[in-house]
């Protein structure tokens, strides 16, 4: 399939994109037969919508002529809950947002509160944060990449990915006792220091074993001709559109824009660490997939440096003084971290009490998913599945 993306500007000034299927508008006498478009509802129970996404899809044969995402099936009113919890209490709720990468949610919230309250995080805690965040980033990307294979019909990469993810979950379990809802990163630091001894050994072992395993798993997909046929040139998102929609994370970087919160709006220990912001110029599904795989390699690179830093920064204080009953002065702050899905931001307004006056969660999946109705048109149903998978939304994060 040739790389062919149509871009039209329609009267309402809305920029519309679409795949090659949009060219198949019928012309000539022979096509003037009354035809029906098939309207199907993809989801919320459809296996490949990655959660409770519902798409209203209009089909012309197998071509998608219109796609309209309907969300909110997992809406739990997190922002309202935040107004009724203290700053300390709300942290456990953040685990339930992007449940595939809960560390990033913890971190986003913690960074925002710290910015608002002017708390300084101890260096050891910053190190712990980077380590768990990067481990969690690998775990999350493994889920994404593995299920992406599943979306395209390849079953094995999924199992390979979850095997490696299991190792990470074991490591994180040893750190904080939980495998999914960590609540490890706290306001002002982390819950406890990283364990010594066996954890360290297993951590190093993971760093040594994971890259070849990743290569093996990646070989199954990115060297497979069918996979390339299915992803190359499909669902192209041009960089200017990606920025215009405010997408972030692998979706934006897959379009060639080097926007990574870890570099663009540095926080924590990241300015001291050496890693590349991975981009791919093409903006198709393959690019987004490749960005994720390459980011895992970069995360390993970061973790290697952290492994050295663990020896250099001595164990000690991991939670700032006065962090538990934090009561920021009236004011507001916006802070964001780079979650595996992109810029995860928290906009906090304090009225001086111990509860947030208003908390607004800028979830990357929400923003990234909004681009779907623009790039999903004009492709086949099968491509639509590939495009959703490459956007990688998590519905705890979308619906909040």
């Amino acid at each position, binding site marked *: 399939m040739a790389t062919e993306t149509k871009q039209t500007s329609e009267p309402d000034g809305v920029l519309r994109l679409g795949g090659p299927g949009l060219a198949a508008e019928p012309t000539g006498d022979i096509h003037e037969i009354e035809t029906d478009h098939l309207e199907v509802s993809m989801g919320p129970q459809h296996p490949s919508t990655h959660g409770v996404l519902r798409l209203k899809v209009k089909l012309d044969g197998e071509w998608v002529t219109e796609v309209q995402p309907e969300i909110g099936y997992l809406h739990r009113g997190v922002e309202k809950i935040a107004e009724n919890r203290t700053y300390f209490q709300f942290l456990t709720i953040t685990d339930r947002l992007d449940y595939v990468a809960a560390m990033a949610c913890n971190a986003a919230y913690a960074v925002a509160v710290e910015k608002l309250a002017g708390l300084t995080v101890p260096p050891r805690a910053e190190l712990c944060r980077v380590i768990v965040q990067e481990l969690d980033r690998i775990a999350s990307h493994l889920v994404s990449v593995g299920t992406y294979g599943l979306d395209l019909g390849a079953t094995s990469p999924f199992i390979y990915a979850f095997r490696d993810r299991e190792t990470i979950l074991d490591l994180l379990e040893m750190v904080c006792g939980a495998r999914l809802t960590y609540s490890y990163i706290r306001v002002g630091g982390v819950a406890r220091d990283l364990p010594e001894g066996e954890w360290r050994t297993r951590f190093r072992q993971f760093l040594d074993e994971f890259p070849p395993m990743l290569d093996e798993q990646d070989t199954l997909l990115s060297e497979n001709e069918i996979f390339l046929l299915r992803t190359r040139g499909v669902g192209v998102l041009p960089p200017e559109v990606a920025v215009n929609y*405010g997408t972030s994370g692998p979706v934006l970087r897959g379009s060639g824009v080097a926007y990574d919160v870890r*570099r663009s709006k540095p926080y924590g220990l990241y300015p001291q660490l050496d890693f590349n912001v991975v981009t791919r110029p093409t903006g198709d599904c393959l690019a987004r997939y490749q960005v994720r795989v390459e980011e895992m390699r970069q995360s390993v690179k970061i973790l290697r440096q952290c492994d050295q830093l663990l020896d250099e920064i001595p164990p000690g204080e991991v939670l700032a003084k006065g962090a538990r009953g934090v009561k920021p002065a009236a004011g507001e702050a916006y802070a964001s971290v780079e979650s595996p899905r992109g810029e995860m931001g928290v906009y906090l307004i304090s009225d001086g009490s111990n509860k947030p006056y208003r908390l607004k969660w800028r979830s990357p999946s929400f923003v990234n998913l909004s681009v779907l109705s623009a790039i999903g048109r004009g492709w086949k149903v099968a491509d639509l599945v590939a495009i959703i998978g490459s956007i990688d939304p998590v519905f705890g994060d979308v619906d909040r």
Partner: protein
Amino acid sequence: MSTELPDSPEEAKPADDIFGLYGLEDLLGEGVEVSVPPVGDPVVTIAREKLLEACRFFKEEQGFDYLILVSGVDRGDHLESVIHLGKADAPNIVILKTAVPYDDPHVPSVTPLWQGANWHERESFDLMGIIYDGHPDLRRILLFPEWDEYPHPLRKEFRLPSLEGKYTVE
């Protein structure tokens, strides 16, 4: 392939005048107020009639091409529409605030400038009840269309019934 970026967050903090914020004040005259709070990013408070103009100024003259967030805040006596703008290649953030009265919760939509505002504004409409004029498809997004129990649950007038008197840690 990484963009040239400042080495530390301290350097990333913009000085006031780089922004041309005061230039904006000259440009737009009355109804624009700029403040740089001690914590956080520069805030520009704008009358809603001039919001779109200011947004265009920021996008086209100042290079704030990346829309981070559109949100609504219930300030107790009025609503507030808040826009966070950023840049795809620099760490700057600017916050645009527009006061919206309860009885006339209209504010111009910024979707003509940023497509990404579409869902943000729908969410703000859904949960906060701010009506964005010029939005192509303003309907509920998170709550279901027939929701009418508490029309806009993020407003302060709505208190969670289940939490009334409970879970109050002082």
